[in-house]
């Protein structure tokens, strides 16, 4: 496979704005098949906007976004999930008035109608989530709004995995979780990656993120300021000072 065939996600000179306020300036980055790539940056740098721009919310005002070589810049939001991209968005956005199981089943929407009607496939997908998050499954008949923050995060990840995505996007999954839960979460992400899902992880928790990632990008005020192998970024004096709490 040459470099071009390895590319799963490519952003070329992407700009985006909320109304008249520009948020992203000429962002260029790529994620290769099988990689874990992380995007780190301070609050307000535009990390969440970048993930939402992939789904056209808001739409990129310039540049191109390609998935597996196919241009997706102007696709309607609901069509993008069908390409094989799933997102665990900022704030989890689970459906609080529905049960855990209903939330998970909504995750199969991007599959074809035939796959969605296949009870064997549905059972296999639910079983996969259950194996990743046994504690979550114990509550599968409970309303999702009654779950704890950690459980809601697991639910958001499980829901995203129900469509068997080729690319999993996560927006600050560790936010608000206790240290022990954060360790468990990153272990699960490693396992998901090992099962063949490519991961693009947006994190403020740069330390943890760079430890599991292959490569990383640093976003500052809507521009990519640094990029490189995760281990190099972890060792970089500037990154340490700005994002890893110094020293």
């Amino acid at each position: 496979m040459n470099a071009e065939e390895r590319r799963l996600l490519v952003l070329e000179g992407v700009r985006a704005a909320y109304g008249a306020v520009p948020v992203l300036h000429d962002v260029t980055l790529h994620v290769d098949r099988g990689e874990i790539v992380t995007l780190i940056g301070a609050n307000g740098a535009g990390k969440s906007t970048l993930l939402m721009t992939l789904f056209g919310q808001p739409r990129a005002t310039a540049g191109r976004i390609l998935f597996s070589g196919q241009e997706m810049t102007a696709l309607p939001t609901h069509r993008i999930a069908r390409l094989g991209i799933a997102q665990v968005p900022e704030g989890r956005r689970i459906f609080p008035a529905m049960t855990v199981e209903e939330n998970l089943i909504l995750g199969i929407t991007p599959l074809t109608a035939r796959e969605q009607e296949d009870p064997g496939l549905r059972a296999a997908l639910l079983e996969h989530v259950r194996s990743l998050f046994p504690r979550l499954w114990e509550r599968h008949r409970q309303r999702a709004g009654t779950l704890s923050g950690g459980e809601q995060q697991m639910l958001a990840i499980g829901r995203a995995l129900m469509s068997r995505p080729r690319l999993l996007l996560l927006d600050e999954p560790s936010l608000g979780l206790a240290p022990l839960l954060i360790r468990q979460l990153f272990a699960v992400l490693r396992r998901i990656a090992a099962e063949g899902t490519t991961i693009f992880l947006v994190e403020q928790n740069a330390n943890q993120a760079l430890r599991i990632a292959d490569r990383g990008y640093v976003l500052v005020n809507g521009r990519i300021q640094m990029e490189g192998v995760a281990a190099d970024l972890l060792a970089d004096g500037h990154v340490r000072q700005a994002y890893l709490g110094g020293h």
Partner: protein
Amino acid sequence: MNGYIVGQQVINGLVLGAIYGLIAVGYTMVYGIMGMINFAHGDIYMISAYLAAIFLALLTGAGVQSVPVALVLVLALTILFTAFYGWTVERVAYRPLRNSNRLAPLISAIGVSLILQNYVRISQGARNQGIPALIEGHVRVNAADGVTIGQVTYTQILIVSAALLSMGALAWIMRHTTLGRSCRATQQDRVMAELLGINTDHIIATVFIMGAAMAAVAGLLVTLNYGSFDFFIGFVVGIKAFTAAVLGGIGSLPGAMLGGVILGLCESLFSGFVNTDYKDVFAFAVLILVLVVRPSGLLGHPEVEKV
């Protein structure tokens, strides 16, 4: 108190409530999914009454003799055509305004309401229209001691059973089907529903179709029961049904049904015992009282909790 009047007014109230509930469902579903009041919904109901009468005349003209066959056909045709009106209104008047401020679709809704009323007034005339009574007869309702406490016409029985059946079907669809799940997801978080691959434009269109279909059932039933209607009936009934939706908790499907029944009972009991002229005053007083105690209505949620 006169047991006969109580019984009869309860029966009348339940029938009226079933009608309000059927129409309230359309208000509450659209509000739940778009956060807007579709003020044209009452006029969709009014149009369905005309459609029912037109189809009935056509079928009678075509020589359909059997009343049950005619009713089933009229019901199917009325639902189909009313749903088409509902879909068109959403497509033409609301979808282009989807991303504008919240006031714009509201104004558009009032405009659609006026257009529909005048469209019917011009095409069908301003005078009262009517259909002959199709279903004759009634049964007596007796208390345990054998005293008659009221009578129920066959039409009233038909109204209540048709309302229960169609609401049950709607509730089942919302609860157990992929479409229903997608509707609820869109209602709770439209952006997330899109991220999951749900075409929320289709879902919203479907909600308008379902709401119009329920209004069509109401339109046919009312036409059968009262036999007469004009181009303006959508206004008052629309406001009452909207009140029922708010009373039950706007956005809640069971709330719309409950609100309809309560409003119907209030109106008919007040008319029976106190005063017919002030029945609406009483109905709205009940609404105000409920809202003072429970601002989100009887079965409404204050706000979907977000953690």
